[in-house]
C-alpha cells in the first residue's frame, strides 16, 4: 500500500473542513483485508471495486462528482479494522464505507460506522450485521449465510432426496456458528442430523470423522467451513476411503485452490456447493449477459488469460460501487439521511452479482433466488455450472 | 619451553592475578604452591586459553601463545587436567579417553588406547563402565589419563589431590614423575606440599595473585616462606 495515501487524505481532509462544495469528490472508504489470512476474496473484491471506480470516473463521475476511494488493509484483524473505521469516519470523513470483508471484522466496525451516521455497504454474510433499528444505514449487498445454508439444505433434501445428514463444522468462529445454524434449519425442516461434529481447521486427517459419519448411516455430508485445507482433506478422506457419499456445503468447497490439494482430480466429483445464479453457466454453456459483459471488459485488467479465481467476488465489489452511485443519484447528493431513504426504497436494482431490494424493514438486499447450487468441480474461467438434475 | 611473563588476569573490574612470571624448562617437573584462593587455578586457566588474559605474554617452545584459543594451546602440546576430577560422567571410560584423542585426530584414535591401558591398568578393567560409576580417585586417574592420551609436551595438573585418599595421590604423582622421566614436562599445582615437593625439581610459591618466592624443590620444604604462605606468619 502507498503510505502517502493516508497522508494525502489527511491533508485533504484538513483542507476541506467545513467547506463542502457541490463539486467536491464523493469519498468512499473501503475496508479490505488485502493481506493476512483469508485475503483471497478481498483481493478479488478489490479488483471489482477499483474497476467500477475507474469506469465511473472516466465517464465523468456521479453527477459531475468524481469518486475518491480510500482503501485500508485491515489484515483480517478486528482491532485494526476498528482503528481504520474510526479513521474513515473522523479523519477521512468519507460519505460511504464498503466492507470490511470478513464477518468478524464487520461485527466490530458496523456499530462504529453506524454511530458516525455513515452509510455502510455490508459484504459479510453473518445475520447479526444488519439491523434496521441499531444500524439504520447499513445495507447488505451479499447474501446471508442463512441463504447459503437454506439452499444447500434444500438441495440435499429435495433434489438429492437424502435425509441422513452429517454436519461437519470447523472450530473457528465461522465454522461453529454455521454448523449450528445448519442444524437448526434442518431441524426446522423436520430432519435431525444423524451425526454432527466440529474439527480443528488444521486437523491433519478427517478419515476418523468420516468413518463415524458413515457408521451413523449418513448418506450426505455437509461441511460448513471456509477453510479450504480442511475441505480438501475432507474430499481426500472420502476418496481414499472409497465411500460414495455426496458432499453438499459451503462455497469454499469449489474454490479453485482446492484442486491442488486433492489427491486425485476425481475426488472432486459428487460435491455441490452453494453458488450464484449470476455466475452459473446455463445448459448452453453461456453466462448471463451482464456477467459476460463484465468478464469481457475486465479480462485485460486481469491478465487477459482464463480467470483462476471466483469471479463473483469481483462482481460483488463492482456492484457495491454501483450501489453507491445509485444511492447518490437517487438521493441527489450525499446527505446520509437522504441516502438511507433512497436505499430503503430501492427495489430490484439491477447488478451484475445480483438484483437488490431493500425496504425500511429489511436491509438484506440479496434475493433468495440469487443462490443456486453449483457442481464443485465445474470451475472454468471464474464461473461454474449447475449440476444436472438427477 | 613455557615462559610466562607478567601475566595479569581478572574477573569484572578486579584483577585476580597481578603480573605473574615463571618458566617451565623442557623435561622439568615444576610445582606451583599456594593456599586455595591464591590464584593458582586462574593462572592455569588463563595460560591454557580457557579464560581471557588481561596482560602479559605466554610463549611455548618459542611460539607466542598469548592470544591462542584453548584448542590451539592444546594442539601446541600444553594439556591441562582440571581440578576436581572432571570427567564426562555418562560416557564410558574408553569414550572419555577417545575424547582425549580428539585434538590429534578428529575421528578418535583407538591405537593409542593400549599404551594408556598399560600405564593405567585399573582403567583397562573398567573400560566399558560409565565414568559416573568410578570412585573419585579412579575418576581423577581417568582425568589424568585423558590428558596424557592427547600427547602433551607439557602436562598441567591442577590439584589432582583434591578430596582424595593419600594412596590415590601417591599413584598420580608417581605417574607424573614417570612421565617426566620419559621426557614430558610437568606443571603441578598443589596444596599437599610435602608430597608435591618430593617429586618436583623447581617450586614457585603463589600468594594473593603474585609469585612470592621460588627455588629448587628440595630446599623449600621446611622453609619459613612456605610455612607462612600456608599457615600465615607466626605472630604468636
Amino acid at each position, binding site marked *: 500500500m502507498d503510505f502517502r495515501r493516508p497522508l494525502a487524505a489527511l491533508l485533504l481532509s484538513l483542507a476541506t473542513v467545513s467547506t463542502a462544495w457541490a463539486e467536491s469528490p464523493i469519498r468512499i472508504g473501503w475496508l479490505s483485508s488485502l*493481506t*493476512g*489470512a*483469508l*485475503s483471497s476474496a478481498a483481493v478479488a473484491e478489490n479488483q471489482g471495486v477499483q474497476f467500477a471506480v475507474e469506469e465511473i470516473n472516466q465517464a465523468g463521475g456521479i453527477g459531475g462528482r468524481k469518486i475518491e476511494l480510500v482503501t485500508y488493509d485491515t489484515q483480517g484483524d478486528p482491532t485494526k479494522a476498528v482503528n481504520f473505521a474510526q479513521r474513515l469516519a473522523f479523519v477521512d470523513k468519507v460519505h460511504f464505507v464498503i466492507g470490511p470483508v470478513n464477518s468478524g471484522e464487520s461485527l466490530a466496525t458496523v456499530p462504529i460506522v453506524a454511530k458516525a451516521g455513515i452509510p455502510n455497504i455490508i459484504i459479510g454474510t453473518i445475520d447479526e450485521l444488519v439491523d434496521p433499528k441499531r444500524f439504520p444505514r447499513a445495507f447488505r449487498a451479499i447474501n446471508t449465510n442463512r441463504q447459503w445454508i437454506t439452499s444447500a439444505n434444500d438441495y440435499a433434501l429435495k433434489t438429492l432426496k437424502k435425509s441422513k445428514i452429517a454436519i461437519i463444522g470447523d*472450530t473457528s468462529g465461522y465454522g461453529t456458528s454455521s454448523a449450528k445454524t445448519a442444524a437448526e434449519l434442518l431441524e426446522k425442516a423436520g430432519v435431525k442430523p444423524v451425526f454432527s*461434529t*466440529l*474439527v*480443528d481447521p*488444521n*486437523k*491433519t*486427517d478427517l*478419515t*476418523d470423522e468420516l*468413518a*463415524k459419519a458413515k457408521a451413523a448411516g449418513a448418506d450426505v455430508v455437509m461441511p460448513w467451513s471456509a477453510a*479450504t*485445507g480442511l475441505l*480438501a482433506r475432507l474430499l*481426500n478422506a472420502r*476418496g*481414499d*476411503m*472409497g465411500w460414495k457419499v455426496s458432499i453438499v456445503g459451503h462455497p469454499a468447497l469449489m474454490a479453485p*485452490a482446492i484442486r*491442488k*490439494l*486433492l*489427491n*486425485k482430480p476425481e475426488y472432486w466429483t459428487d460435491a455441490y456447493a452453494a453458488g450464484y445464479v449470476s455466475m452459473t453457466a446455463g445448459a448452453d454453456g453461456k453466462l448471463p449477459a451482464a456477467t459476460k459483459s463484465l468478464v469481457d471488459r475486465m479480462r485485460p485488467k486481469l491478465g487477459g488469460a482464463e480467470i483462476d479465481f471466483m469471479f463473483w467476488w469481483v462482481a460483488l465489489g463492482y456492484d457495491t460501487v454501483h450501489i453507491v452511485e445509485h444511492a447518490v443519484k437517487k438521493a441527489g447528493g450525499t446527505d446520509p439521511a437522504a441516502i438511507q431513504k433512497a436505499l430503503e426504497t430501492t427495489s430490484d436494482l439491477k447488478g451484475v452479482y445480483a438484483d437488490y431490494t431493500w425496504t425500511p424493514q429489511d436491509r438484506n438486499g440479496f434475493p433468495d433466488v440469487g443462490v443456486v447450487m453449483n457442481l464443485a468441480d465445474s470451475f472454468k474461467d471464474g464461473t461454474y455450472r449447475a449440476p444436472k438434475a438427477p | 619451553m613455557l615462559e610466562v611473563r607478567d601475566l595479569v588476569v581478572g574477573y569484572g573490574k578486579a584483577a585476580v592475578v597481578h603480573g605473574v612470571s615463571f618458566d617451565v624448562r623442557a623435561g622439568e617437573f615444576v610445582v606451583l604452591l599456594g593456599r586455595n584462593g591464591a590464584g593458582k587455578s586462574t593462572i592455569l586457566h588463563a595460560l*591454557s586459553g*580457557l579464560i581471557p588474559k588481561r596482560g602479559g605474554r605466554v610463549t611455548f617452545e618459542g611460539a607466542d601463545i598469548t592470544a591462542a*584459543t*584453548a*584448542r590451539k594451546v*592444546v*594442539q601446541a602440546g600444553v*594439556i*591441562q587436567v*582440571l581440578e576436581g576430577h*572432571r*570427567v*564426562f*560422567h*555418562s*560416557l564410558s571410560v574408553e*569414550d*572419555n579417553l*577417545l*575424547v*582425549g584423542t*580428539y*585434538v590429534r585426530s*578428529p*575421528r*578418535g584414535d583407538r591405537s593409542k588406547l593400549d599404551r594408556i591401558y598399560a600405564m593405567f591398568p585399573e582403567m583397562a578393567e573398567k573400560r566399558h563402565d560409565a565414568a559416573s560409576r568410578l570412585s573419585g580417585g579412579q575418576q581423577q586417574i581417568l582425568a589424568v589419563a*585423558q590428558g596424557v592420551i*592427547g600427547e602433551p609436551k607439557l602436562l598441567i595438573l591442577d590439584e589432582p589431590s583434591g578430596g582424595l585418599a593419600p594412596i590415590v595421590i601417591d599413584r598420580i604423582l608417581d605417574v607424573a614423575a614417570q612421565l617426566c622421566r620419559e621426557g614430558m614436562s610437568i606443571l603441578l599445582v598443589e596444596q599437599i606440599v610435602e608430597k608435591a615437593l618430593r617429586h618436583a625439581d623447581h617450586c614457585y610459591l603463589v600468594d594473593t595473585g603474585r609469585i612470592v618466592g621460588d627455588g629448587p624443590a628440595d630446599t623449600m620444604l621446611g622453609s619459613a616462606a612456605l610455612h607462612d604462605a600456608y599457615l600465615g606468619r607466626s605472630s604468636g
Partner: protein
Amino acid sequence: MLGVLITGLAIGALYAATALAYNVMYSTSKVLSVTTGHLAMLGGVFGAWFVTELGWHPVPALFASLAVGAFAGWLTDVIAIRRVLARSDEHLWLLSTLALATIVQQGVALWWGTEPKPFPRLLPQDFTAGLADQKYWLPIGTTIVMAAALELFYRRTLYGKLFVAMSEDAFAARARGVETDRLRAISYGIAGALGALAGFAAGQLTFAFFAVGLTLTLNGFIALAVGGLGSNVGALVGGAALGLLNAFSANLIGGEYQNTVSVGLLMIVLLLKPEGLFGSRRVRPV
C-alpha cells in the same frame, strides 16, 4: 479404533521428531529454542516449493530441504544463540529465539502465503491404501529411523561423544581441545536438518502451511517435557503419548478441546514427575 491409533501415532511421530530436535540443540547449548517447530515447518514448505513449484524430483528436493533446515538451524545459533550465550543471561535466549521464530514464521507467511498448500506425493502409491497410506507411515518410520540414527551417532561416533561431553561440562571439553562454538553450530545444523526431515516426511499430513511451526514448537515441547528433557527415548514416548491422546480425545469428546487436553497432560506430568518420564532430576545449584 485402529484408525485413531495410527493417525494419532503419525502426528505423534512429528511431535517426537520435534522433541528430538530440541534435544540435539539442548545438548550442546542448554537452550530450548522457540524456533524448533519452525525448522519442521520450513522442511514442509520448502519441500513443497521444490517439488510442486520448481518441479524437482523428490530426492533432490529432500536433500535441498535438509540443507535449508540445516542452514536455518545454523542461523539460529549464529543470530540468536552465540552472542546471547556469551552474555550468560538465561532470559535472553528465550527472547532472541522467540524473535527469530516470529521473523521466520511471518517471513514465510509473506512469501508463501497464509493458506495451506499441497505437499506432493513422495512414493508411488494409490490413495486408497487406507491406513497403509504413506502419509501415516512416512512420519512414523522417519522418526524411528531418526531416533535410532541419533542413538548410533551418540554411541558410535566421536562427534556424538563430544556432544555428550559438551552437554555435561563444556569447560572441561574446551580444556580437551574441543571447539565448543563450532560443535554447537554443527549441532544446530543437525537439529535443523532433522526438523526439516520430519517436516518433509509429514508434509502430506500437515500440508505446506506456515502456521505449523508454532503448533509444533508447543506440542514438541510438551512431548519433550512429558518424556523428559534430554532423553531421546523420552521424546519418542512423549510424542506418541501426546499424539494418541490428541487423536483419542478428538474422537471421544470432539475437536474443540485439543489444546486443553494436551496442556492438561503436560500439567499432570509436571506435577507428578517434574523431570518427565525418562528425565534425570536436576540438582539445584547454589
